[in-house]
Structure formats: C-alpha cells, structure tokens
C-alpha cells in the first residue's frame, strides 16, 4: 500500500506563541499532536517571507534555485516595474509534481506561486488569487462547481482582496478590526470545508494545505494574541479583540483535529510553517533613508505623505516619483526588504565586478548598519545581504541587489515618510526566521525534540515518509532523526540520480546537467559573483 502524507501548513506559526495558546487550553489538539510528534524549530529562508518560504518548503530548493523571491518580480530583465508572481516564475519540481511522477495523486490548497494552476493529477486551488477570478484558477476546472454544489463551499471567499490584505501591514481604524478578523475566520472555515470535502470525496496520496489567516491576524493584532506586548491588557477593546483572535485559533485547532482524524493513523502528518512571528515597534522607511543619505532623489512632483506614515506604495508610484538619472538605489516592495541599484537611470545589469558597483554596495551596507532608533540610539539593521550571499542559483538576477535584515526581522516601509526611522504608535507583529516543524505517524519518534532544521528539509522528509526517492535537485536533507531506528533501517533514504527528473515545473526543461551548471558558473563569474 502506498504510504500517504498530510501536510498542514500553518502560515506564520511559531512555538513562541503557540505554546502559550496550548497552555491556555485554546489549542488542545495541537498540544496533543506536538506531544506525540517529533518536532523542531524550522529555519526559514532569507528574508522569511511567504512566497519564497512556502516555495522552498514544497520544492526543497532555495530561492535562487526555484525563482520565487517576493510577491512580485521584475517585469523584464532590465525593468524596475514589478508584476505579481505566477506559477510560471517557479522552476523545478514541487512535492505534487514529484508525487505525480511516481504515480501518486496530490492535492494542494492555498500555496503561493500556484496560479495559473500547474498540470497536477489531483486538485489545486492556488493561494493569493483574487476572489473575483478564482473560478478560473482551480484545477480541475469542474472543481469550482463541485465545491459549490456538493460541499456548499463559498469558493470566491477563498480568494483574497487587496484592499483588505493591505490592512495587515498598513493598519486600520479601530472599528475595522472586528470585521477584518471575522473575514479571516470565515475564510479559514471555507478552506477547511473544501479540504474536508476533497479528503472524503477524492482522497489523494499527498494532501497539502496552507492555513494563512494566522499570519494576517498576527501582523495586525499581535498585541491581542501575545498579551505580553499589550500596553493595557485589561482594557475592554483589547479583551474583545483577543477573544476574536482566540476564536480563530480555537477553530483552527478543531480543523486540524478533524483533518488528522480524516487522514487516519497510517498517514504521516506534517505540520510546518513558512516562518515564525514576533513583535516589532520600529519602522525603517527605506526610501526615506536612501534619500536622506544621497542614494535616492525624488522628482519635484514625487509622492509625499505629509505627516502620515505609510508602509506601502504601488511600485509605479515610486518609479514615477523618482529622479531616476540622479538615483542610485531604490526599494520597491515593503515585503522582501530589497534594494535595487540603478546606473544612469536604469537597473544595474552588468559590471557587477566593477569598483563602482562594489563601492556603492559597501557604502549602502555601512550606512544602513548605522541607522538608529531615534529614542534609544540602537541600531535597527542587523545585516545587509548581497544577492550572491542568499540567492545563489540560476535565478539570482531576478533578485534585488541588497536585502536588508532588520534587528527585529520586520518589514521596511517603501513610502516617502517624514523620517527614516520611527517608533510605531502600536506594536505590530512581524515575521521571524524560526517557524515550526512537527511530524507524526508511522515510524516517527513521538515526543522527540530536535534541533533547528532547515525549511529545505521538509520536502525531502515528506517524500521519504511517502516512500519516494529524493530528486537530485533537492537541496534539503531528510530529517532522519525524526524516525525510529528500526523504521529507518527498514526504510533507507533513496536518492534519484541526477538527470532522472524534469527540472522545470512545466516539463519544458531537463534536470540541470553539467553543461548547464557550467554555463551558469561562467555567467556568475562574468557578473563578478564567483572567483
């Protein structure tokens, strides 16, 4: 009999706040599951961001090798303009395509970079698809009507609505909190109903879902979920909002219990997150900092907020607002904290080994590392990464030249705010590098607490648990210590030879051969990225 796996993705999950919720009795099932599972903190990618992190989790590859770096990507090789990512940006096999290749069917719900849906034998409902056109996004096409008619799922509610999502990082008025939290509670119910129906009516060997409401709530309502950060925890509005947030987690716990029950005791269950969460009270307005330090020049009619502080601008607002000829560096998205370098008004595309390029980067890095909070004088930037440090691989040219890691791992603002570094009026939640990994089921060392593992290790561990070989292109490693010794001896890890698997998701490519690797190496060297 084929060994099956259920992957329950918990967007933004961290032991730091889940364990208090378990102790309070909010998530009793999760407490029992963790106690019976092998678990480990899970190191995310840099930056710890939803699209690259989930993609790494389901491919076992780092962003430079799967091609997803952010919610958006440059529109062309030399363009500053950004468009939303799609499944066409994702290169390499996913868990579902690997499973299919071995004759196993798969279900994948709510993962990013899955639209247009890939040709999977099974079911796909991509995440991050606007509700207005989700009908066209499901695979197989008739699934939309089946879910509505046979399971009474409000499929449009599975989609996202940009005006609503932006509140997670921009904040919202007090009266908007409750309907916004309820929106996410209701959307999670629909995802659960959709998966419950599929697991009953059309079960597959690999079943995977991302529950992402927690991420949204944690951004905006961190102080309601983690009372340690709340200024006045006994205040009535706080108590009310906390109650709503805890309702979300109670319901999520019941969904997890029901799905694990449906999967049955012979199914391996993996719970994992794309990143963790923690508090942030600092806001670095990256473009404002770049302007203050002479790296960016706004046009005379460039954007301006006045005294109001914002986090996000549409990318074209930023680009149109620049004096491009005099601008050397700009931040375009508030999600991945990236800085794009310009030369003569265009993206820097060659001469990466020149003194001019290297010197510009050094000046930016040194300056940013000295950016400080106005109240305490403490540094706000932990590290500035070059793209060859974190995005090595065939797709690194799609990545920003520099990536800023803040001390609290938070996101930057790209808006033209009045000051470069400010202390937020309210503590918010932001991503942290350590998420969760827990595995339960046949052969698992129940109760084992393991050291930190990489997010790249999740995909090979799932494949191994399903009895499938690990493709050569997978960078991660099977978490073998999660399994009992006897089981390991009976089920050794099997690796595929290089060239055995198609390299591209759409099947248009072949496994990267020695010649391709050599070409990439030559290209990297030409760009100054290899010695």
């Amino acid at each position, binding site marked *: 009999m084929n060994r099956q796996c259920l992957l329950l993705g918990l967007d933004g999950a961290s032991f730091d706040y889940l364990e208090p919720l378990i102790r309070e009795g909010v998530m009793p099932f999760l407490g029992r599951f963790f106690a019976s599972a092998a678990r480990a903190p899970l190191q995310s990618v840099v930056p710890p961001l939803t699209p690259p992190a989930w993609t790494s989790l389901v491919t076992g590859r780092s962003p430079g090798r799967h091609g997803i770096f952010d919610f958006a990507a440059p529109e062309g090789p030399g363009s500053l*303009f950004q468009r939303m990512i799609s499944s066409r940006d994702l290169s390499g096999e996913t868990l579902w395509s690997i499973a299919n290749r071995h004759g196993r069917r798969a279900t994948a719900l709510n993962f990013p970079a899955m639209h247009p849906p890939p040709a999977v034998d099974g079911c796909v409902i991509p995440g991050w698809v606007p509700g207005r056109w989700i009908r066209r996004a499901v695979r197989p096409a008739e699934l939309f009507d089946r879910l509505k008619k046979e399971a009474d799922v409000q499929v449009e509610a599975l989609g996202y609505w*940009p005006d609503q999502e932006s509140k997670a990082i921009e904040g919202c008025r007090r009266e908007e909190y409750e309907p916004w939290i309820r929106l996410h509670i209701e959307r999670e119910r629909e995802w659960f109903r959709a998966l419950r129906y599929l697991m009953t009516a059309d079960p597959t060997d690999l079943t995977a879902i991302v529950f992402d409401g927690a991420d949204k709530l944690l951004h905006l309502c961190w102080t309601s979920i983690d009372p340690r950060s709340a200024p006045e925890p006994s205040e009535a509005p706080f108590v009310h909002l906390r109650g709503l947030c805890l309702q979300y987690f109670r319901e999520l716990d019941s969904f997890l219990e029901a799905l694990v029950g449906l999967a049955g005791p012979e199914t391996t269950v993996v719970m994992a997150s794309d990143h963790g969460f923690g508090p942030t009270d600092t806001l670095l307005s990256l473009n404002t900092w770049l302007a203050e330090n002479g790296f960016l020049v706004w046009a005379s009619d460039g954007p301006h907020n006045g005294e109001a502080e914002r986090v996000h601008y549409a990318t*074209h607002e930023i680009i149109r607002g620049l004096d491009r000829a005099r601008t050397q560096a700009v931040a375009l998205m508030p999600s991945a904290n990236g800085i794009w370098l310009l030369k003569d008004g265009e993206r820097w595309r060659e001469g990466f080994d020149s003194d001019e390029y290297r010197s510009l980067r050094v000046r930016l890095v040194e300056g940013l590392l000295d950016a400080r909070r106005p109240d305490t004088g403490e540094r706000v930037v932990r590290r500035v990464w070059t793209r060859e440090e974190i995005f090595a691989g065939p797709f690194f040219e799609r990545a920003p030249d520099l990536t800023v890691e803040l001390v609290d791992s938070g996101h930057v603002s790209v808006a033209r705010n009045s000051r470069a570094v400010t202390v937020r009026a309210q503590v918010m939640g932001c991503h942290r590098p350590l998420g969760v990994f827990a595995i339960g089921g046949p052969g698992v060392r129940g109760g084992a607490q393991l050291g930190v593992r990489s997010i790249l290790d999740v995909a090979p561990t799932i494949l191994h648990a399903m009895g499938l070989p690990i493709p050569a292109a997978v960078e991660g490693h099977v978490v073998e210590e999660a399994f009992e010794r006897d089981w390991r001896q009976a089920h050794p890890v099997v690796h595929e030879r290089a060239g055995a698997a198609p390299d591209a998701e759409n099947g248009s490519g072949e496994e990267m051969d020695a010649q391709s690797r050599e070409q990439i190496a030559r290209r990297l060297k030409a760009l100054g990225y290899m010695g």
Partner: protein
Amino acid sequence: MDQPTKEQVFNDLVKIIRDLAEDWEFSGEITPDTTMLGDLSFESIDAVALASAIEELYGQSFPFAEYFSQLEERKIEDLRVQDVVDFIHGHLQPAETKG
C-alpha cells in the same frame, strides 16, 4: 507561425475578456471602442488576470505594469479595448525569440 494580425489579437482579447467577465455576468457587445473600466466593469485587480491570460495565450511576457503605470498619467478610465490590442500587437515577439 505567422505573427497574429491586429484583428486576430482583437478576437483573442475579446475571448479572454468574455471568459474573465463571466464571473460578473457581462454579456454586452465588445467593440474596439468599448472601454475596459467603464463598459466592462474591469477593476484594477483584473489587470493582473488579464495580463496573465494574455501571456499564457501568446507564451511570452508583456510589460503590462509599465504600460498601466503610463496610463495612469492619462485617464485610465478611457482605456479602450483597441488600446490594449495595439499594446499587445506592438509587443508581440517573433516565435523564435520567445523565452
């Protein structure tokens, strides 16, 4: 394969729009002068879906974000179907250069 004519691009675009607009039950006639926002009730988020469907059909990328950003300097409300046809046709790549 020969490069599609503007007429073929128009027909392709009408098919895509009809498919996309099915969800908000648009059933009127689509002409070159039909406006995307006013007549077809397109919303800004639909531009992403439209671009994605067009790119899938022609198997190439188009600089839609840059195009739409330039439009905002004029009045995006005036964007006609023919304007989008002209943009697509002007950026079609010969088959041998598509990446």
